[in-house]
């Protein structure tokens, strides 16, 4: 199976370079249809005391509609004539943007999104990435505007036996099959080394059934697992990380591949997460 439909979340304006690069690469590779989505919500409707003047909301809606139109125009401007089927859907409304994106991406095999750009109020008007990952039922490929670009060269799977990681692994099969090199890494305490080796070799066998050759690595836990994982990823010069994700308290804390880390707040390469 491969990825036939890619959805992009273009809601945050000005952070789409990584999304568009990844989309072009994947659309070309999989001959996929591209569905561009953008949802914006008036902030005043969320962060008000309930007595905000209707006029203010109307003004803000107008501003957001303009912003949406600009995003739409920019999307069409970069589409190469003759490229595979492309579609645009946008919305300015009061529904949480993440749930709108998750619904409209119903036909997508993967959703490509930018990492959240700081600011709590901004978060309210745009898609909350953690909410999107939780609601989508689809893998979300987080593509930063700067840093290592998606190249389908080296993928690192941060393995931890949770339903989320299993999901991430099945969800990423088309991606892993397209990558030249796949490393599955797990971090286990000293007493659990043997079990971790057994577990990870099962994963290697499962991947092999799908024609994915992988390298397996068990790391000993030293306390700072997030940093250890980050080092491995940097040493491998991976261009994409695959992990299961739990999100807690609105992106302030993520559990990724079993370790709490802030990769996703400021990633320097693509991360594919599933919940």
């Amino acid at each position, binding site marked *: *199976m491969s990825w*036939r439909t890619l959805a992009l979340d273009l809601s945050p304006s000005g952070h789409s370079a990584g999304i568009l690069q990844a989309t072009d690469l994947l659309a070309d590779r999989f*001959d996929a249809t591209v569905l561009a989505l953008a949802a914006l919500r008036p902030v005043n409707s969320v962060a008000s005391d309930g007595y905000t003047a209707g006029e203010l909301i109307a003004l803000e809606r107008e501003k957001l509609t303009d912003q949406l139109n600009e995003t739409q125009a920019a999307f069409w401007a970069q589409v190469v004539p003759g490229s595979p089927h492309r579609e645009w859907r946008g919305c300015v409304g009061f529904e949480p943007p993440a749930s709108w994106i998750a619904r409209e991406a*119903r036909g997508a095999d993967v959703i490509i999104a930018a990492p959240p750009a700081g600011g709590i109020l901004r978060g309210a008007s745009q898609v909350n990435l953690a909410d999107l990952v*939780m609601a989508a*039922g689809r893998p979300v490929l987080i593509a930063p505007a700067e840093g290592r670009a998606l190249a389908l060269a080296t993928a690192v799977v941060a393995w931890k036996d949770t339903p989320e990681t299993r999901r991430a692994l099945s969800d990423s099969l088309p991606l892993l099959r397209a990558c030249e090199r796949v490393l599955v890494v797990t971090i286990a305490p000293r007493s659990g080394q043997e079990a971790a080796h057994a577990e990870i070799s099962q994963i290697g066998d*499962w991947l092999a*059934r799908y024609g994915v050759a992988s390298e397996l690595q068990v790391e000993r836990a030293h306390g700072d697992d997030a940093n250890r994982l980050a080092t491995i990823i940097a040493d491998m010069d991976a261009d994409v990380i695959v992990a299961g994700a739990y999100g807690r308290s609105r992106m302030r804390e993520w559990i990724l591949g079993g370790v709490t880390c802030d990769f996703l707040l400021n990633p320097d390469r693509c991360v594919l997460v599933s919940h």
Partner: protein
Amino acid sequence: MTDNPETTIAREAAPETRVESRREPDGYAAVLTHVQRDAPERLACARALAQRFGAALIGVGAEAIPPLAAGPATGMVQAQWIAAGSQAAEENMRAAREMFETACAGLQAGGEWQASLDLPVEVMTRASRAADLIVASAPDGAANRYRDARPSDLALATGRPVLVAPLGEKVLSAQRVVLAWRDTREARRAMVDALPFFRRAEAVLVLEVGGPRLEDAHRRCADVASALQRHGVRAEPSAVAASRRTEGEEILTQSWAFGADLIVAGAYGHSRLGETIFGGVTRALLSQHALFVLLSH
């Protein structure tokens, strides 16, 4: 809109692709089932699916010894209880293993046996990390968690799609399949999890039992159907208005009318104090004994 799976296959076999990834698995690579001596139909169903998809069959033998009911039990009684219990459990598992080995004969991708004296749902959850599809069926009579892995618990615990076989010796054809659509995470999961079935089916009905605005339901079903078509699935959308029947009854009625023997649906539920609480549609689908149901959570 391109609607041609062959294009992709050709692309993926292009020279720049590595030799190892040239194989194009179009389905489930490993099918997992809990093997019990009194449930030969379940094993037969899992074997048939493994054969159909060219998948490996993973059989699990699992049974736990129930704790002795609290009471004035002495250590001696406890020890005897455990000894007798584990002897019975081991005997059951030996019989299950024999059944499994017979079933694996002639199976293209082979079989793998895993056994453990532990709660079946836990052994199955561990084994499912290397499986793509779980075949389950409701136990005949009341479920006993020390002996049986209930389909609903598996759907929630494993993160894998669970095919629930109806009682009796029914054979799944999956030629006509219904996707019970709702715009939820679980249904979106089910849609992807069931793709190997969909791609082999002669017709797939994307069915939504409409809420207040039927035209919205139509649009959603059409959206899903065209995404499936891009995967080479013969899918057709169908939104029906809510009737006096419950949503679950309506889905079953429409599935009969369509001639389906498989319903694909999201499993709506959560675990609370060790008890699984399910939504109405999921309960309706689990309490009928005529059609196969594929559940994703």
